[in-house]
């Protein structure tokens, strides 16, 4: 059962090949079997089985929803009523959310079965899942390598077939980068397409939830459930959600692909460049034409991001003060002691680093030079994309400059770690949708292809990704030991 895609599982549930309870048991068993990967922070077995039983009743009554009875898991950044929601932090190790995130409600309403909560970098700050309070997640393709981050638990769980589809969140590449490093499909939707309500904020103007699955078709099914306007999120966009499966089988004749020359310069592993080029060749065979495009401001994306995201996070994380919820230090002497020790002991190193950077960037006398300047750069980058996308339908390029690096390899050097998001960050600054799909292997480790589209063109991205997956089998490969 675990080798099937969500589309196949949905058919199997309907044909009576297996029940949701059987499916759920099967995946729960695998989660236990492969717990060494450390992909889950919390497994909600009892709740999952109860949801599966309810789903079986709905299926028996003729439910038509594709998600009914399908096991999923939530990144531990989404609040789940009555279930620990840690955000990968000691700060929230004792936090039982009293409400459901909108995304969680939508999956519940669709009849999905939640198996548990997935490991992640602390407060989604990290590119390797090594900043998690719960320890690193291992990459199923090489357990000495990182799975990427911050949605590292999500990517590893899908790659290891512990769950057929999961949620992730992407602030600077946190869906696409781990998807690429674990050989799965991950979609970061347009900013505003998926509600952020109940999704613990890292950088509010960049955060976006999205699906992580094995195939583009499954990503379409999950996005169908997740997307849509939410009156509880003022930044969600009130725009109809298209039927993502309806256009997925469209042929690609006439598709124009843009390749930004800045994506193929210094720093990109030659092996990865070759894989991206052969993927583009595959698209040529599918009827696409290819153009070079230029985005001169791309080189400023990382510095701009590391001002804007920390600035927003420095305020977003102020609520973790030891007063109302979360970690509180022992025997505080006074208010200042309560604040400094609760936050000092509750937050990890990377989170503190970003809070400090952000606080500094917003301080009187520095605001104009850092925050305002970064916002200007952000607009220039958006303009670059707008210009490029006026010439082409989609932009393609690598997701990461290298394949999954070794555990501990970059933890001592934050700058090197930040550079692993060099191809993904600009897309968040522009608010565009982008998908990462498996495109080959380098030294037995997966490589991802990134496809970037127009605002709200998730349907087009899924279509372009799906067509590639019809003629390639990279996405079907399974890591050894997890078949």
């Amino acid at each position, binding site marked *: 059962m675990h080798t099937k895609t969500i589309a196949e599982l949905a058919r199997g549930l309907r044909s009576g090949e297996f029940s949701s309870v059987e499916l759920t048991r099967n995946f729960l068993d695998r989660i236990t079997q492969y717990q060494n990967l450390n992909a889950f922070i919390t497994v909600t077995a009892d709740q999952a089985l109860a949801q599966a039983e309810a789903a079986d009743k709905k299926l028996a009554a003729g439910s038509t929803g594709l998600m009914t009875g399908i096991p999923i898991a939530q990144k531990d950044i*989404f*609040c789940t009523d009555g279930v620990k*929601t840690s*955000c990968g932090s000691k700060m*929230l190790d004792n*936090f039982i*959310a*009293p*409400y459901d*995130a909108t995304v969680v409600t939508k999956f519940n309403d669709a009849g999905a079965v939640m198996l548990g909560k997935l490991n992640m970098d602390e407060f989604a700050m990290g590119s390797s899942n090594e900043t998690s309070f719960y320890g690193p997640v291992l990459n199923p393709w090489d357990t000495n390598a990182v799975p990427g981050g911050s949605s590292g638990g999500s990517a590893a769980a899908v790659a290891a077939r512990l769950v057929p589809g999961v949620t992730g969140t992407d602030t600077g590449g946190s869906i696409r980068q781990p998807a690429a490093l674990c050989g799965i499909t991950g979609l970061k939707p347009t900013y505003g397409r998926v509600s*952020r*309500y*109940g*999704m*613990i*904020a890292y*950088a*509010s*103007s960049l955060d976006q939830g999205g699906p992580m699955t094995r195939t583009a078709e499954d990503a379409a099914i999950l996005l169908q459930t997740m997307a849509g306007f939410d*009156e*509880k*999120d*003022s*930044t969600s966009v009130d725009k109809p959600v298209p039927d993502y499966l309806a256009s997925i089988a469209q042929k690609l004749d006439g598709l124009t692909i843009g390749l930004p020359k800045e994506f193929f310069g210094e720093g990109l592993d030659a092996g990865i460049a070759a894989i991206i080029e052969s993927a583009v060749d595959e698209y040529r065979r599918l009827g696409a034409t290819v153009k070079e495009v230029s985005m001169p401001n791309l080189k400023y994306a990382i510095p701009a991001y590391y001002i804007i995201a920390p*600035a*927003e996070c*420095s*305020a977003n994380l*102020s*609520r*973790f*003060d030891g*007063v*109302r*919820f*979360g970690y509180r230090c022992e025997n505080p002497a006074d*208010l200042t002691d309560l*604040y400094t020790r609760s936050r000092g002991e509750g937050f990890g190193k990377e989170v503190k680093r970003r809070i400090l950077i952000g*606080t500094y960037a*917003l*301080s*009187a006398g520095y*605001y104009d030079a850092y*925050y305002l300047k970064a916002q200007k750069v952000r607009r220039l980058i958006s303009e670059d994309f707008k210009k490029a996308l006026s010439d082409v339908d989609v932009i393609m390029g690598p997701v990461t400059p290298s394949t999954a690096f070794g555990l501990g390899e970059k933890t001592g050097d934050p700058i090197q770690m930040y550079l692993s998001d060099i191809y993904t960050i600009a897309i968040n600054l522009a608010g565009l949708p982008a998908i990462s799909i498996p495109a080959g292997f380098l030294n037995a480790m997966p490589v991802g292809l990134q496809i970037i589209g127009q605002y709200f063109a998730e349907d087009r991205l899924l279509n372009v990704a799906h067509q590639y997956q019809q003629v390639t089998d990279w996405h079907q490969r399974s890591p050894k030991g997890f078949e």
Partner: protein
Amino acid sequence: MDNQKWEVVIGLEIHTQLATQSKIFSGASTAYGAEPNIQACAVDLGLPGVLPVLNEEAVRMAVKFGLAIEAEIAPYSVFARKNYFYPDLPKGYQISQFELPIVGKGYLDIEVDGVKKRIGVTRAHLEEDAGKSLHEDFHGLTGIDLNRAGTPLLEIVSEPDMRSAKEAVAYMRQLHELVRYLEICDGNMQEGSFRCDANVSVRPKGQKEFGTRAEIKNINSFKFVEKAINHEIERQVDLIDAGGRVVQETRLYDANKDETRSMRSKEEANDYRYFPDPDLLPVFISEALKAQIKATLPELPGAKKQRFIEQYGQDDESATTLTSSRELADFYEQVVQLSAGEAKLATNWMTGDVLGALNKAGLDISHCPVSPERLSGLIKRIADNTISGKIAKQVFDKLWNGTATADEIIEQEGLVQITDMGAIEAIIDTIIANNQGQVEQFRSGKDKVFGFFVGQVMKETQGKANPAEVNKMLMAKLKG
């Protein structure tokens, strides 16, 4: 203080709590007085993952205020995060407006001792209130009540245009009256719906530059504003006279001791690190929305006062009094209408007996035990001479203390004015006959004795005789 030597400069920041049903960024109720932390939802508590959603009613109220002071309404305004840590500030930042407030420059006209003056309003911006820290009853610990957290506030910032505590109070009163007229704030100062911070400085007369200012926080009554400012002026002048310097700082007024004391200096002031709140979209106010809100503006106090003078023939003082609140003005106009246009009588009764009785009882007009219907019933009987003004006061007492109408009281108590002149003449004749001594005195030139006769007639008629008619007839008879 030597008024010849020093000039005082005052600017006020007034926080008005907007009278919306729910909070500015959540659906929780804003009602005052609930058990602690009952009216605080997930958003107000700042739980992980929650997001603010702007209450449109708060925006409409802010625009309404802006239009009423003829201010520029920003077509585009932005919410910003004001960052500081405090236990009753759940998110560690307050959502406010900084660079782009919703209401720009406007003005308010005040009057002090008959002198009119225009006070500039620099800006007014929307923000959320914090919760309350409770330091008593927790054995050395602090209790937090977040019911107030997220209550919408409109912070109205004046120009430093006021030159005395009296002007500051006049401005504050004018603003207080206006926000209640607009029905955007209940004006309840005890409950903190209308709070004032004052920026005070002094400078030698003729000097152009402002002196160093001190900010006095949270002065919550008209009386305290005047006292606190005057105290602060004195402190600053004394300090300078003694060769010292005023330092920029925040001071707290202690009403019990009638003094201000330092809270924190400029050096200790927070760097609030304002930046646009990425959770909220900019607020766009279209011309159409402005026009729509403008159409809902009530007649404003100044215009109403002018109309009362013209339409009801009131003097300046009465018109000022009767337009001091919308409820009072509405009450008055109802009385006039129900009494078929007896504007003058209505003015006299309202400014005299009604307000006097309310004052004595410590009530405001909305709790007046005599309704406009019952008061107009009384006024009609005065107007048509059924009762005299003197009897009317008795009837009013009964209206105040009971539920009967004026007609019922007049009927039950037999208070109808005696209009039968024959009956009065008989009474007068008897009195003259029985008091020949006094008649002699009168006729010999002692005019004062006339009052004795009037008193006797009124006693005999139990006050029901028409005084003017009694006077006329008595005079004729006594003169013989």
